[in-house]
């Protein structure tokens, strides 16, 4: 079915955009131009977001993507994950060096 008749965007187009990393109505508007003209499709666009979120969570219960407006993008989530990983590595390194000093 067509979701946005103004921009001629189908449900499939929206799901593809979500698979590529769009996480909010804002992201979808930027990418596909949906919900930008008469805005009658906002409810349907949000339904697609909810469906996609439910699907992702069914596959991966740890799925972090939040679909509310102003949510974190995938990049931000990845950056945070990287920072945490780096911190852990640094801690391990400092622990090891402390052990080394203690042994000496």
């Amino acid at each position: 079915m067509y979701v946005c008749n103004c921009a001629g965007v189908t449900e499939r187009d929206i799901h593809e955009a979500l698979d590529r990393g769009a996480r909010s109505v804002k992201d979808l508007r930027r990418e596909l131009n949906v919900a930008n003209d008469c805005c009658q499709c906002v409810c349907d666009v949000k339904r697609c977001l909810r469906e996609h979120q439910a699907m992702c969570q069914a596959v991966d219960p740890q799925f972090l993507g939040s679909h509310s407006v102003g949510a974190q993008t995938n990049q931000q989530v990845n950056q945070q994950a990287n920072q945490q990983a780096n911190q852990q590595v640094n801690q391990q390194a400092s622990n090891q060096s402390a052990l080394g000093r203690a042994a000496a």
Partner: protein
Amino acid sequence: MKADRKIIAALNLVLKSQLTGINQYFLHARMFANWGFEGLNKAHYKTSIKLMKESDKLIERTLFLEGLPNLQSLGKLQIGETVPEAFKGDLNYELTSQHAAIEEAIKVSSSLHDFATEELLRGFMQSCEDNIDQLETRLSLIDTMGLENYLQTQVHDDD
């Protein structure tokens, strides 16, 4: 003749639904024509024109009742990407939008003793139910004979 504001509001809701239907059926008709289903094009085009004539009657009635028919407002079109999707969109439109709006308007006009409006609306209800019947028949035909066989019956030669 001045009518109650509730009647004008109810008639405008029916008009909104009809204007939505005109556009939805018209677009589906031309999409079917584009895909080569001349039979479906003709049927949907006819329904669209019928709705247009009905909304003309509704506009005249609203003006007669000294209200302003709202031609600005339009509902969401449920456009399908395939023939069965288009039928489902049309059926959903008839059941959730058109039937509900007419039903409400009949209730309002009946409760306020506007029997001429009620009669007009009863005529609309009849054609709405005819459309529902036609769409349900088509969907059940697709189920029983298969989509390919059904679509084959809708391809007519141009000559």
